[in-house]
């Protein structure tokens, strides 16, 4: 069952994941989930915060997600955890508690990008970033069993 879930989640990252990048780089690192390469497309702006399209990453951690187009707020919930992020705001919320972000979520080229580490860690996972060459890096996400 878990394999099916992971497979479907990884597949989901392909859908609506924004632009695809043929090869990874420091700005567009490869992302691995529990050891398997993910189709999740991340972008690293100068702030250093990796940003990813919102729906695939919330799908990845199994959170139910809703988006209010008027307020540009995305709300994700799962087992007592609620995450709120708003386009253009440096304030994120976890169960109502405000958390300062270093990069605002935002909509660019019709894709709503959110903060990868903020979401993964508040969903119980962990993230490591590793530089693998002078101009390439990878991100490894570990989700709980």
């Amino acid at each position, binding site marked *: 069952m878990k394999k099916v879930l992971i497979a479907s989640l990884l597949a989901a990252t392909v859908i609506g994941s924004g632009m695809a990048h043929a090869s990874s780089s420091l700005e567009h690192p490869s992302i691995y989930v529990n050891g398997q390469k993910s189709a999740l497309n991340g972008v690293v702006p100068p702030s*250093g*915060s990796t940003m990813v399209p919102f729906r695939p990453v919330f799908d990845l951690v199994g959170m139910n997600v809703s988006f209010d187009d008027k307020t540009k707020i995305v709300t994700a919930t799962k087992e007592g955890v609620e995450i709120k992020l708003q386009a*253009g705001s440096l304030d994120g919320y976890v169960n109502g508690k405000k958390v300062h972000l270093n990069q605002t979520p*935002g909509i660019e080229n019709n894709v709503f990008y959110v903060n990868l*580490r903020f979401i993964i860690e508040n969903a119980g996972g962990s993230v490591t970033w590793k530089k693998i060459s002078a101009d390439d890096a990878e991100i490894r996400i570990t989700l709980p069993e």
Partner: protein
Amino acid sequence: MYRKLLYSSILATSIFSLLLAPAATFAEPATSGTLTAADGKKVKVVHSEKMKVADVKLKDVVTKAKDAVKEEKAKSKSETYDYILFDDQQIYTYEETPTSPDGELVVSDATTPAQTFSAMATSGQTDFIDDGVGGKQKISKIGSVGSYLSTVLKLPTGSSQVSDVSSSHSPYNYAGFEYTNTANSGIGSWQSDMGLQYYQNLGFSGTASGWKPILTLKQKTGADTWTAYQINFDSTYNQAQYHNGFKPGTSTTIYTYYNYNGKVRMKLTGTTICQDMACNVSGDYSNTTIMESNAAWNITKIDDFKLLSTVVSSNNTGLNKAVYSSIKVDGVAVPSSYFLTPQQDHALVTRDSSNTVTIDVNSSLYTF
């Protein structure tokens, strides 16, 4: 023709956070530090220049920048103020934002550009742009041209209005001034282009579209020699720092001065797609950007101001549009008699009863 082209290389990076990747990996190595300004504020300084500029010089630049921003804050209410000073060695980009009110300074080397910004008028009324297409409206106030021109520029948006940026197409909308010395083989003539260049690799994701400031100042220094000073943020060099731009579809007010306390200056006010140059905060923000020569050139007279919309292209094609309204010289609306016959190269230049000038560049539609 020899040109000494000076050009920005904003290679520095902001090291505001290290959540996943060290920001310094985003570009060539840069170092940062702080500098105490004359007002006692701690200004973050990002060095990407090869030979570190002395602190005494940086303090002078920060003082100039803070004075300019203070002056502008008294006139307008922008959220972000950018002040860009250039000389023949360095480009200094100073910024104050609501989240960085004490200011940040990025120092970078002026280098020779990979591509030149010209789209310059040659002669004649058609095909007057030698490396692309476009339209041009000159404004000449006989007797006394004035010290500055201001206009509201409505920026085009989307592929139906403006060519996608590519290796063969680069759209520009800009104002400027010209002076031709009729004696001495034209030595002492001036040309300046001040305005905006279209980019499609902006925003925090590098996928957003926007218009970034550009300023070119050229002086004829020999019978066949133009010496040029140029600031822009070409994609080759700016990836680490300058992700911001004026928002397509919005209006930007342009002020062009040929002698502002002796210096050449451009001021832009409008709406940008980010709050800060690194785009840590995305969204619509009011912005005032000033570009100024460090040297006081003391240009005493010009022949005319100009308004253009062009596309630098390798195959004489392109799409662009600029609507210039509220055209004023020295703060006074320009009467009809000041407008000279427009030049058109695959473009149509029209002017309505309010003296709003529309330059419609479309090589598919206009074959002249």
